[in-house]
């Protein structure tokens, strides 16, 4: 991925991150460098505690590194303050979580609409966008349902609709199939593949599931804070 031509969407140089636990400093990421081009679908794998979710959080702008440069579409997000980072996330990143993280008191429609409340779109425009997103994930008939009335797979599809509603360049997915049965997981992965192929979304996905990882164009392994290209990577041609 680093050797591909053209400016990368994400450029990481010498990224360092450590946590303080019980008075001790525990290094999580040590000198990580990585480029991800627009339109890539990158799988991040590794054992538990290897730092893959930490790396994903840093790329998504919900955590801050101790050192290093993290450019996303030319913006060094490590230099942004909290408010600017929140604005940047709202416009540039779509989140897909393992446990969907939907608001239980809001309907599917209202959950998908949430990120649009931070935009200047009118109510009618928001409705059009939400209906289109829910149609894309195949849940038009579930718009008025609450999360508790939906299956796990359906909830994750609502979460995906929410992730793409602001048309972000980057989608980050942390174990998106980790809480789903095989059939639902396949549906979600197929949907993500469509977002990548048809809409050109750049996706970075953390997963333990090899079958899920095989949907990615490239797989990177993270172990003991160091990143390496997978030896047996199933790499597809990059569009």
């Amino acid at each position, binding site marked *: 991925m680093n050797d591909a031509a053209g400016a990368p969407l994400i450029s990481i140089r010498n990224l360092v991150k450590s946590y303080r636990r019980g008075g001790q400093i525990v290094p999580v990421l040590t000198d990580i460098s990585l480029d991800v081009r627009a339109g890539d679908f990158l799988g991040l794998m590794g054992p538990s505690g290897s730092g893959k979710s930490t790396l994903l959080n840093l790329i998504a702008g919900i955590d801050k590194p101790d050192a290093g440069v993290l450019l996303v579409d030319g913006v060094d997000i490590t230099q942004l303050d909290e408010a600017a980072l*929140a*604005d940047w996330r709202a416009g540039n990143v779509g989140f897909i979580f393992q446990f969907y*993280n939907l*608001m239980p008191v809001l309907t599917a429609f*209202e959950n998908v609409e949430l990120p649009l409340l*931070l935009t200047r779109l009118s109510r009618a425009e928001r409705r059009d966008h939400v209906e289109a997103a829910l149609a894309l994930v195949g849940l038009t008939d579930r718009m008025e349902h609450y999360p508790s009335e939906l299956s796990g797979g359906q909830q994750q599809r609502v979460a995906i609709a*929410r992730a793409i509603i602001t048309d972000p360049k980057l989608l980050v997915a942390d174990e998106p199939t980790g809480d789903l049965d095989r059939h639902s997981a396949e549906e979600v992965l197929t949907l993500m593949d469509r977002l990548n192929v048809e809409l050109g979304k750049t996706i970075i996905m953390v997963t333990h599931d090899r079958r899920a990882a095989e949907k990615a164009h490239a797989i990177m392994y993270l172990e003991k804070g160091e990143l390496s290209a997978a030896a047996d990577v199933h790499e597809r041609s990059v569009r």
Partner: protein
Amino acid sequence: MHFLKLVLRNALRHKLRTGLTVLGLVVAILSFGLLQTVVDAWYAGAAGAAPTRLVTRNAISLVFPLPLSYRDRIRAVDGVRAVSYGNWFGGIYQEPKNFFPQFAIDAATYFDLFREYRIPDEEFAAFLRDRKGAIVGRKLADTYGFRVGDNVPIRGTIYAGNWEFTVRAIYDGAEPKTDTSQFFFHWDYLNETLKQRSRARADQVGIYFVDIIDADRAAEVSQAIDALFRNSLAETLTETEKAFQIGFVKQTEAIVIAIRLVSYVVILIILAVMANTMAMTARERLSEYATLKALGFSPGYVARLIFGESIAIAVIGAGIGIALTFPVAEWFAAQMGTLFPVFAVSRETIALQVGCAVAVGIAAALVPGRRAARVRIVDGLRAIG
């Protein structure tokens, strides 16, 4: 709109928990309102005092009388418009527990000074014609079922013997705070009887009521009256009617302070309950708040959600509590009979109830709101379990 929807739906998410918290608030706000109304009732006499009325009494103690001859000398003081007088009678109607204030008053002048007592003209004329006639307040009449024409026997304690009165008029208050639990009768009836039974106690006045022209000259006129009788056998103490009434309340001030304290302790207790509810709520939803922040919502938005929910619960509880305060106060007043002559929920009490409820709502959300606003997104997302 979306914000309010989220606040209200969150508030109703755990119906039992919210319901119990609201119930606690209702009880607390209702108790607070009732206790404040009891305190107000204690001060009702002072609140109903006119700024242009002074009270002159014996400087040694209220139990010592003043000569009737002081009346004309007081009336001659510069700044005095009118003078009336009366005696506390302190009798028992049927049983000692049937307490109500009885005053022997100078019928010709008293009601010119106390214009807040509204008496029908024909009834007042009947009262003036009957030396044994009495005027009773509406609340007193309702409590004991007195009607015009009824005979009311009262056993004297300060003035021994059995005294017979005939109700000739029933007065109403010009305002809700006017005391309508009193019993008035002719001072002349008392005085003439004393002349027959105990001559030495005749022509003695318990209190002079002085109507002055200008309320701003109250201190000056008071000093002038007291100066008239300095070094006499019965020196006087003149003060405003309000100060006179507060003097009575001061005698039981410890009770009033205790009631006030309890009313605020009730609020503190419900604050602790409410704070616990909000802390539990915020802790359970930490991952949701982290998700909102990840989506781009500001920490301030997350804090406002918690404050909004807390204030919404507090306002619902306060609304029901305040609405219940009126009927419960009415019932309480009925149970108390004439012990509290004026027992009305004031606007100040309602404002205090609202203020306390909002303060509880805000204070209860302070810690959880701050925590949710400051929690790191990655930590909050981890709280998903």
